[in-house]
């Protein structure tokens, strides 16, 4: 039995939270699953000079101190939340960075750290060797740039489209428009490597390669995609070390395209969901997720 409990907060239907819950329960760890929609009715935050806790009011009254060494915290911000929820989760997140992060019980980037929610900022500051990119906000320059991939910059709409197809469905706005990223198309296999830094400072990694057969530019949009798992190359661990030095987040994934013998990096995601790669007949993603929780909720440091 694992002695740490895990508090998971997010949307009721979040598949990654369901997945954690399933694994943690199978490991006999205590799981407290809270839905964002029940904030105020079932749980709230309480803080004073000497005490900061998450207060459960339903089904039983219970306080969980944020600096409790035996509690791990996992938050996933849903893409659609009202402003009050965002404020509350931001508050909880900020308290967790003070109280739970130093204990290794919170991943820090548990939900969007806004700085790294800017994709061009990531290209500048987190990653080396990225696709040639232009940032433009004038409609005329989109067609003239000869760079066929259009991407949003924030995580608000994680859209990748072909320039010929549409313009992110944005209504034109006087002479200026919403800034977008135009990127050179890189031919090659799309890859995502998940990294988890254990409590002993070793890396666990899971690399998934997606091959798209219907000419889609984003494998998530493809109807004809095949996934395979591959051993993570040694140089990717250097990349993980470098990213960790900057973001201090113990659990993240990196998207890249493997082309001409080297990776071209696209973005870092601090709220990874390996559950998306759990498939029938292949246990890699499930084993990886099991090992992540087994280490994180393990007993060694309590």
């Amino acid at each position, binding site marked *: 039995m694992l002695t740490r409990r895990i508090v998971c907060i997010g949307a009721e239907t979040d598949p990654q939270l369901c997945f954690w819950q399933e694994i943690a329960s199978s490991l006999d760890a205590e799981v407290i699953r809270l839905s964002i929609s029940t904030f*105020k009715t079932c749980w*709230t*935050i*309480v*803080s*004073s*000079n000497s005490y*900061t806790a998450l*207060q459960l009011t339903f089904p039983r009254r219970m306080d969980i101190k944020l600096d409790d060494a035996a509690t791990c915290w996992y938050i996933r911000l849903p893409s659609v939340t009202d402003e009050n929820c965002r*404020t*509350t989760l*931001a*508050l909880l997140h*900020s*308290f967790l960075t*003070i*109280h739970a992060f130093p204990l290794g019980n919170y991943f820090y980037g548990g939900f969007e*750290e*806004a*700085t790294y*929610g*800017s*994709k*061009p*900022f990531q*290209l*500048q*500051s987190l*990653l*080396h*060797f*990225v*696709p*040639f*990119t*232009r*940032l*433009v*906000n*004038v409609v005329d*320059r989109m067609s003239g740039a000869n760079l066929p991939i259009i991407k*949003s*910059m*924030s*995580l*608000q*709409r994680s859209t990748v489209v072909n320039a010929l197809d549409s313009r992110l469905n*944005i*209504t034109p*706005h*006087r*002479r*200026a428009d*919403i*800034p*977008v990223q135009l990127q050179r198309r890189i031919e090659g296999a799309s890859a995502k490597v998940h990294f988890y830094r254990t409590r002993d400072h070793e890396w666990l990694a899971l690399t998934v390669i997606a091959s798209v057969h219907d000419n889609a530019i984003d494998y998530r949009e493809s109807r004809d995609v095949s996934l395979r798992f591959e051993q993570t190359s040694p140089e990717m661990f250097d990349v993980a070390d470098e990213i960790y030095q900057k973001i201090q987040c113990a659990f993240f994934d990196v998207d890249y395209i493997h082309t001409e013998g080297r990776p*071209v990096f696209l973005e870092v995601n601090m709220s990874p969901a390996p559950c998306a790669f759990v498939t029938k007949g292949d246990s890699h993603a499930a084993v990886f997720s099991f090992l992540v929780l087994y280490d994180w909720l393990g007993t060694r440091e309590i």
Partner: protein
Amino acid sequence: MLILLGARENKTLLGFYNYVSSRYSVKIAWLDHYQLINEISVHDTIHTCGKTNISWRYKDDEFTSGNVLGVLNDLRSLESGLFQDFAPEDRKYAQEEFFAYLLSALSALPNVANRPSQGGLSGFTRTLPYQWATARKLCPSVGIPKYYLGRMSDAECRKFDPEYTVISDKLYDYGNWTPASRPIAEGELALTYEIPSGSACIASYVGGKIYCFRLTNREGFAASDKILHFVKLLAEHFCLTICQVLFFADGASGHITFGAIRPHLDIGDCADIHVCALYASMASEVLPYAY
């Protein structure tokens, strides 16, 4: 080229504009939120190594990574009103995209004070309870206000002296230090805090230099090493080049209680004798060639 970013009514920017234009022969462009959203045409490049070249056109001017010497950045939040011309379903998206864009662009320009950060285009100092918890961690000998954050209840309120207590539902209201309570429904999340004893003082911080000012008599004073050290720690924690820290100093005991930190400098909260020195310090941050 020197760029000032912020509202036209911003007195600190206006004073700095006058200070620089009377002393240096540098072209100054002052852009507010509206101009950034509506009148700048962007054509930036990120090279494969991650190096970014900024290229903005505004009227007849071209701002590039090569010709911008520095940026005094006092942009506050991108209010939703700026995006009223977008289709309703695009407004929130547009707001997020411009934030993401400005965050990367301002990070790529040289000598930007303050640099953008999570939650704020010119720095972010999070909520009051976060600030207090951080201050206590950084410097345990500095006091913090007695506070309670949680569901509003009579029992909790009775623990505070109403004569010195603020009750608010605003967690980011760094300037709210007048005893009063907002109407908050029973059971709602509220922040209750007691105004510390001692005289209220403001430390203005610019690039490591600190100027202190007593709010009661509006006089400047030389800060103790303890205050200097504490303010520096706070500024570094929040990655700020420019900020103001409110603290309460008890003259008799020498005890210091931290109030709040904000990622801006309001020149109205500074002693007159410090104003020139503050502008000079800002100039040395955004126009380092001048020194």
